[in-house]
């Protein structure tokens, strides 16, 4: 059963005087099955961040619909969006977006506190996730006291603690060194194995090669897709590279 269905999604940016129209998304179709691990690739300006923002209910499309478990996200009222987001989605940012005045623990608790959960329940939910992500020792530290990779794992913990239907990640490895990148990709694979659906936007071939399926966006439409199938990382990496080369040469 598909958990996410994107149907003819369009987004047009109009400059203030209405003289300039930019079509960021021109009709995007795809769906994501439960438990899938999908990477979306594309060059800068291809519309992938716009797409992710609409999926995360951070932005409204000009046309089309996004169904999350059959519910049209586009129809959700502005005022209910934040609540919808914290109940159904987990979001991992490129630059972590941890809040400096909170300890790592409190950063992770933030969505639960917003839901009004009890402190004991929060601790109970945190323990296994922190263990899985290897940040149990860091919980009482502050964001400025830990490394980038640790920050990103804390951010992943914050996204996972609400047990979201869908984990969205926007260039999660973008600000990490290669060792931290490897660690984070391992983490994503592990949580995907436990059944977590992941949708990741990236332009790192390495990050994408860990996914089960890669979608390529160009000029506002899904241009191509690649399934991992039985391929190993190296084969997948090569397939993605080839596709990217083809894309950049402008072949249609």
């Amino acid at each position, binding site marked *: 059963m598909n958990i996410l269905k994107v149907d003819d999604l369009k987004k047009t940016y109009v400059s203030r005087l209405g003289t300039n129209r930019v079509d960021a998304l021109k009709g995007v179709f795809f769906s994501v099955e439960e438990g899938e691990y999908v990477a979306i690739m594309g060059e800068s300006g291809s519309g992938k961040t716009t797409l992710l923002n609409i999926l*995360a209910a*951070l932005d409204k499309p000009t046309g089309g619909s996004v169904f999350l478990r059959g519910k049209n996200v586009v129809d959700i009222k502005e*005022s209910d969006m*934040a*609540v919808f*987001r*914290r*109940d159904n*989605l987990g*979001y991992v*940012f490129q630059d972590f*977006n*941890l*809040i*400096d*005045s*909170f300890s790592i623990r*409190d950063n992770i*608790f*933030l*969505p639960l*506190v*917003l*839901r*009004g959960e*009890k*402190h004991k329940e*929060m601790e109970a939910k945190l323990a296994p996730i922190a263990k899985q992500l290897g940040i149990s020792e860091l919980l009482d530290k*502050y*964001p*400025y006291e830990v490394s980038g990779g640790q920050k990103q794992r804390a951010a992943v913990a*914050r996204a996972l603690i*609400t047990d979201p239907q869908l984990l969205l990640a926007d260039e999660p490895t973008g600000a990490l060194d290669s060792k931290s990148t490897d660690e984070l990709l391992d983490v994503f694979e592990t949580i995907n194995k436990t059944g977590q659906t992941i949708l990741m936007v990236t332009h790192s071939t390495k990050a994408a090669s860990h996914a089960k399926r890669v979608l390529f966006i160009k000029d506002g439409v899904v241009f191509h897709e690649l399934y991992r199938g039985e391929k190993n990382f190296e084969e997948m990496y090569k397939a993605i590279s080839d596709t990217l080369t083809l894309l950049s040469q402008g072949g249609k």
Partner: protein
Amino acid sequence: MSAGLFTRLAADGIKKNKKLYIPYIISLAGMVAISYVLYYLTEAPAITRMRGASALWMVMSLGKVVMVVFSCLFLLYTNSFLAKRRNFEFALYNILGMNKRNVVRILLGETVMVGSMGLIIGFAAGILLSKLFELILVKMCNYPADYSFYLSVKSIIMLVVFYVAIMLILFIFSAGKIIINKPIELLRSTNAGEKEPKTNILFALGGIGLLGGAYYMAVTIEDPLSSLNIFFTAVLMVIVGTYLLFQAGSVFICKLLKKNKKYYYDPRHFVPVSGMIYRMKRNGAGLATICILATMVMVMLGSTGSLFFGLNSSIDKMYPYDININSVGISNYEEWKSLSPDMLNKDILEVFDYIKPEDVHFERYENFVALKNENGADFMKEDQNILPGDVANYMMVEVQSLADYNKNTGSNLSLEDDEVFFLSATSNFKKDVLILSGLEYKVKGKEEGFNFGTDVVNSYRIVVKDIDKLDRYAASENAQKHLYATWGFDTRKDQDDDISRAHALEERIHDVYIRSKAEERLETTDMYASLLLLGIFLSIVFMGACAFIIYFKQLTEGYEDAGAYKTMRSVGMTKKEIKKGINSQTLITFFSPLFMAAVHLAFSAPLVHKLLIILGLSDILVFTLSYIICFAAFAVFYLFVYKKTVKAYVEIVSA
């Protein structure tokens, strides 16, 4: 590289960051201007000549202390915020190939430019404002306007030295940071989070101790004269205590709240409490300053207002009759004793032709300076000076003869030689035997709440049968004494008539002091009006400063917090929740200074009331009312500023 390049880079830096630099320069200029006005008003010849100048001087001197402390802290605070932003650019210059010495030169250029702009604008505004203040004050008090230009060069030099020193210290701080840190660390420092502040128990306790001490002093003070002595001490203690408390105490309280998991992990408290821990530490100085400025405004308006509005009752007390005549300089007891009640009647009845002889009231008493003790009092000797430790016991014992008393009050009292009739005034005596420097009297009767003279000094009056005996005894003890005789009568005429006739009487009788209540009232009104006016002026200045700090705080915090709020929104915080959090956080941070100021005000009331007694106000109702009105007015103003600035803040963080 040429010096011109550094200057250009520095100027560019200021221009590019004008959103930050303009408020910074304005606040620097504002502080310079206010400081100059305060310094000027304590020195300007046109002001020091005015009546009531001493009260003014006291207010201004306090203002100067507050401004100095405040300037240091406020500049330190704003500069740290500014430096954080600028470090990024400096690091970039460094990485792009400038060595650290060059970067420091750019920083120096910026500091010099910002500093000189602040000083020049500040002094220009200060000089204009001070002259304007002076003119309005002088005009309101009906002095001839003095359009001559007086420049307080001494103040300018002092202030320039002071502010240059502060700027220099700030420059050394920032330069040190650039030199010590690696450029990459500076690059990051713009985004780096603040360390969680440590609770400094010593500071918190010190603050509470200082405030408690000052409150205790203010509440337990008994006589007005000692209130003058402790006033400055108490005020300094309150200022320092407030700064310590806001700096350390608030962090301590927030941390306690944070320890309570159930309270802390509640959507209503989570964001505000953790935000406040940081806020309070960095803004402790700002909040403490708001608190002190608010207290000053309210004390100033409350006291000058109550002086002005309580004027009539004060005048009635000081001048019991419409026309009051006092003897001047009678030092000979025999001469005093032989004064006759109707000796002035011929002149009085001629000038005030509608007055009958029986309308003229005559009173005569002998006044001994004494130190109170539990059995009575000891006369102060002629060669004895009052010691600081004795100020609280300092008093006046007024003695009246039985014959005079009976005649004045129309009563028919009789006393034995060793008996007194006791009249309590600002001082009382409870025992049955009164001993005056060894001379024993039985207290035969008492009258409470007898109302005479001034409230400044503790005093009571005793009536004795044989005043000659007491005077001889006192003379043998070499006691300090004063001999008084007064005549008074009510005219029930309009004030111009009273004043002109009083002056006519003055022409005829020379060795007495003649005052009409009407003229006295006019003059006092003058003086109190000028004090009130000054109070209002200074309040406007201080309130403006308050509003500016609040605005600056909101603005800078808004830019700092924008990122955190963006994160919270994307994690799933609704706009409503964000607004609620902001409201409760700003409500607490903003109203804590107002709350503290109210506490300060309440505890200062007894002390200020005593001080006002020296200036002649005794009406406690007027005093209390003016205090309450001032607080209410200030609270309304504060609420208005709060509403306006919270809006600006919300707009910034939700953009």
